[in-house]
């Protein structure tokens, strides 16, 4: 069992966990992830390592409650335990001093962009972060990001914070101001990464994306995570997770991500019903006691 040293919500439905994991903390590099299981009948899900401390032996993950497993995970509290935790997985991000690095992130992707932005800064880049979210509430890790990069810009779909619009609009603003990125890293929902890749391909700016394929083992054994990049099949868990955004077949990956949509919904519903029952039972208990 793997101990949760600290768990706290940092945005609606988004929780940050500090996990006890001395081996992983010692080894991990920017861009790598872990696979965890919440309980003994649980599925294995991949989550990026957002931060770590080798001396204190912990890693930090930031999780958005999407379906059954991530929602269940987000009910866990400080002092609880995970059933399984393995890593670090995937290849570390290739970092060099490109000049100006722009990290574009959407939603919980900002957590995944954090370590890359930090590593980019440490390598001597000028780093600009563009954070996008549907609304103000859903922006995460803005403060932590400001601590590591030169500048943070925000966009929201509804205009409740930063620029009204999408991250691609902010990139256009940058270009209009004469700031031409030498390298772009885009991490977030697939449509966002596809849109950014599309935009930067036309602009001729190299772009790295972090693919969130569905995974099982995470060690290259099963091929669940395969994607097409540059016309070739890759296994995201061992050949990635980062790839040249201009080469990725986003359409295929998009439909592969929906492979179990129906079953996942069924499973999530069961979970929510069980949660409701539990809550009702607790309520009844409280009423009886008082």
């Amino acid at each position: 069992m793997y101990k949760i040293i600290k768990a706290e919500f940092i945005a609606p439905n988004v929780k940050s966990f500090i996990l006890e994991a001395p081996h992983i903390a010692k080894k991990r590099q920017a861009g790598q992830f872990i696979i965890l299981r919440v309980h003994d009948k649980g599925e294995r899900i991949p989550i990026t390592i957002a931060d770590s401390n080798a001396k204190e032996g912990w890693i930090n993950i930031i999780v958005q409650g999407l379906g059954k497993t991530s929602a269940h995970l987000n009910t866990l509290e400080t002092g609880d335990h995970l059933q399984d935790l393995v890593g670090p997985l995937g290849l570390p991000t290739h970092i060099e001093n490109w000049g100006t690095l722009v990290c574009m992130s959407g939603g919980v992707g900002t957590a995944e962009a954090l370590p890359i932005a930090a590593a980019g800064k440490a390598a001597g880049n000028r780093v600009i972060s563009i954070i996008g979210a549907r609304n103000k509430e859903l922006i995460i890790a803005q403060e932590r990001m400001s601590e590591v990069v030169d500048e943070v810009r925000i966009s929201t779909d509804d205009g409740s914070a930063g620029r009204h619009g999408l991250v691609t609009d902010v990139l256009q603003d940058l270009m209009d101001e004469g700031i031409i990125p030498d390298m772009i890293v885009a991490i977030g929902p697939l449509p966002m990464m596809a849109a950014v890749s599309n935009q930067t391909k036309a602009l001729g700016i190299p772009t790295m994306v972090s693919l969130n394929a569905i995974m099982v083992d995470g060690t290259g054994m099963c091929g669940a995570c395969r994607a097409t990049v540059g016309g070739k099949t890759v296994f995201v868990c061992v050949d990635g997770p980062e790839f040249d955004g201009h080469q990725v077949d986003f359409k295929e990956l998009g439909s592969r991500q929906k492979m179990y949509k129906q079953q996942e919904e069924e499973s999530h519903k069961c979970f929510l019903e069980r949660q409701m029952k539990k809550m009702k039972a607790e309520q009844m208990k409280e009423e009886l006691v008082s």
Partner: protein
Amino acid sequence: MKHERPQSFNTVPMKERLTIPRQAMPEQDATVRSTNFLEVNLGLTPEQAVIEAQRCIECKNPTCMEGCPVSIKIPDFIQLICNQDFIGAAQKIKEDNSLPAICGRVCPQETQCEEVCVMGRRFEPVAIGRLERFVADYAMQHGNGSLESFEKPASTGQKVAIVGSGPAGLAVASDLIKEGHEVTVFEALHEFGGVLVYGIPEFRLPKEILRQEVATLEAKGVKFVKNFIVGRTMTIQELMAEEGFDAVFLGLGAGLPRFMNIPGENLNGVYSANEFLTRSNLMRGYDFPEWDTPLYRAKHAIIVGGGNTAMDAVRTAKRLGADEATIVYRRSEEEMPARNEEIHHAKEEGVKFMNLVNPIEFISNEQGSVVAAKCLRMELGEPDDSGRRRPIPMEGSEFIMDVDMVVIAVGNGSNPLIAQTTPEIQTNKWGNIVADEDGRTSMEGVFAGGDIVSGGATVILAMGAGRKSAIAMNEYLKTKVRNSA
């Protein structure tokens, strides 16, 4: 092979032995079992086991032993069965094979021990595998023979790391703990057993057997560490230099699924056998949503391939409720590498066989899910380097069949992780680790065996390789002490 004749306990006269029929394996009825994941074979009864044992004619030259890759003293344990000493028989087997309950179930006996059984020349061979399974199960149920006879050896103070908990790794652990070394098994997944837990289905090899074997090794002092990927969580160099391991065994298996490189292979509903079986076995997808991992339940599934893996996948698809589950194999049934018993069982369960056919493309609907397979018919030409006749596509034979799931079971390559992170370890052009007869690799103190060296093979060959390595590792550790003294 020289072999002292065991004491005979067989009271049946020689001539009569030839007339005893080979005892049939009691099994779940085919119509019932094709809807559940419980074990198909139920095991011989004690009475049956004794009768079967009495069929052995106690050969002066027991060729059966030569057919067994680890040379189990087959006539000896069979005589103990004749004497109804089932625990003694199990212990006799355990002298050479630490996992008899597993091998008795999954060995391809018809090409190993039973193929060369003298009885088999004129009659049916003695059912060695079934007897092996019987006594192993009996011993497990009636006090664990191997644990009771285990005496904790004096500690050598030397540490051995075993990477991978498949049959190769478990065999090394079992042998080296007896020598007094401190043994730790590191496993990447969250359960121990390698292919035995993630690949071979419950209906052929109940996971409980594996859990018991691991528990026995643990009771003997072997440490098991799960969720630990050597090469990622820690490298081999770090294990040796920082964690103080004196020797390392690599039993990594052949865990890299091969695909066919044809159009449509990344469509939804197209699986590698590894993924399909892992979701079903390791993750218990067949119990979704009670267990969290989802799995396709197809109406018309095809499984491409003709090995054990293909048979396991097709029978799993059937059990998940497929109306039609079909093996699509590019050669004829004669060339199929699967165990006879699996082919036979699959047929009984209603699996269809489409031989001399090969898919060339998978076709999708608008959602990106597979809905059809384009195939070619094949004919057999001259033998290729595997000695089997080469399949050649027949011109103009193209046809399309409706399918809603495809499982590709055309073999496995080796996982490149260790080679990538440990350049000192030499690999060949197929990515297999290069090791000598005794498992020595090109890196000092590091040994390897099983599928990662041989390419995909069998459980008993992996165990045999593990045992050879264990002997060499023990020697290596001894000289290490001498040299440092």
